[in-house]
């Protein structure tokens, strides 16, 4: 990847895939800011953004632990539902609201990173799938309204193993695919997904916005 040391990215989320995406972007020369899984409200957004004259890239991969907890819908309490679906969805929307100004100043790019179950569903992961699919579609809405401000917005879908404990990810793979990854492996997030995020910010992709890219080695081929 080309070094772009003067460019600033904000990666939002704790653990993987946010951590690995951050590692990959730093390796590509990005200056990195991080927000974890804490609340995304007006105060945190205000604290994160006002010191920035511009922001070239915002990567959202914030899915708190309860999202990633496999549990059938009938066993969830309302409080757990809020924590696993409503709150992450709302936080992802609020993040965009706060990021608009800094992204517009830079003509920047926003990327929502979501798991496969957003589009394909996941047994035991209804709240996670709900929040993530809401944000995947939200990326398209943002792309439609923010294009005239010079901001591009995309979603990237990853294999569940980028988000889940190994046993749960294996179960998802078994449920969703009848074949091995055509490219022989599920992509490494730092080495093989971060470059895709990096590339989306370049002039080579200046005509692309609102895309939903599946970066999973070819396991799932929608459409």
């Amino acid at each position, binding site marked *: 990847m080309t070094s772009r040391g003067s460019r600033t990215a904000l990666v939002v989320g704790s653990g993987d895939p946010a951590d690995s995406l951050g590692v990959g972007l730093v390796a590509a020369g990005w200056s990195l800011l991080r927000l974890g899984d804490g609340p995304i409200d007006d105060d945190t957004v205000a604290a994160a953004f006002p010191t920035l004259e511009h922001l070239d890239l915002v990567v959202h991969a914030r899915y708190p632990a309860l999202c990633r907890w496999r549990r059938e819908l009938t066993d969830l309490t309302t409080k757990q*539902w809020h924590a696993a*679906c409503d709150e992450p969805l*709302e936080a992802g929307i609020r993040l965009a*609201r706060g990021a608009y100004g800094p992204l517009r100043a830079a003509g920047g790019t926003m990327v929502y990173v979501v798991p496969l179950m957003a589009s394909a*569903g996941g047994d035991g992961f*209804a709240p996670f*799938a709900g929040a993530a*699919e809401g944000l*995947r*579609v939200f990326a398209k809405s943002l792309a439609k309204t923010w294009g005239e401000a010079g901001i591009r917005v995309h979603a990237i879908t990853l294999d569940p193993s980028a988000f889940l404990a190994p046993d749960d990810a294996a179960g998802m793979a078994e449920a969703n695919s009848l074949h091995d990854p055509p490219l022989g492996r599920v992509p490494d997030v730092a080495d093989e997904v971060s470059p895709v995020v990096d590339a989306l910010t370049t002039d080579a992709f200046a005509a692309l916005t609102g895309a939903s890219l599946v970066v999973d080695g070819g396991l799932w081929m929608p459409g």
Partner: protein
Amino acid sequence: MTADNRLDRLLEDQVAIVTGAGQGVGEGIAAAMAQAGARVVIAARRSANGEPAAQAIRDRGGQALFCRCDVTRRDDIDAAVAFSLQHWGRLDAMVHNAVSPPGPPRPIQEVDDETIASQIATSTTATFHCAQAAFGELRANGGTLVVLTSPAGIEGSGHLPLYGAVKGAQRGLLKSLAREWGPHGVRVNAIAPVASTPAMDAATEVNPTLEARLVGRTPLGRIGDPTADIGPVAVFLASGLARHMTGQTLAVDGGRYLGL
């Protein structure tokens, strides 16, 4: 307008709850399901439109009862299921249609916290509550959950980005439930309609050219009627004709969104 009479008896002996059935798409779906023979609970927030919607069905010879239900309140949803069991002894279809009005078109940076919370409450949270409250009966009867989403929940919406997000979230939820509940014999599907509704009328008042532009871009050349166009699709999904369908979203939009 009434639904096609070929629907008659398709849902005979079934009982359905339709949320937001006091007007618009929900009222149309309730009318079509009643015409197909279902006994329908008109679950609506206001008796001012819920009672007349139920009465209109009874006037046509169908069976419908109004039950006051604010879908942002879990107790109300539980009460609607209990009401169905009390009056008709069963529940075969839960149709979650109610939604908080999306308000005027505006970019996300101008949407306040209260609006975000309200949209989420009637969409994702209420879908969760409707699903959970109905599951026992749906499992017992090989029933179905139908969720009213939107083309905006598939392709996004530049005018209503928040609405697109919550409608998309409903689709992620229903696909997961389809996987989860399939082994129990419960089917979960969605309808993404474009229809003449009070909400559409309100939007047209603000933007008088909206309807003409929408019709002009719709291959079938008109906006859907809630009873005659949208209702029959809900009947189909609740009926045995759709017994091998689950996890799907049917766009009922006159061909407006062909790229979905």
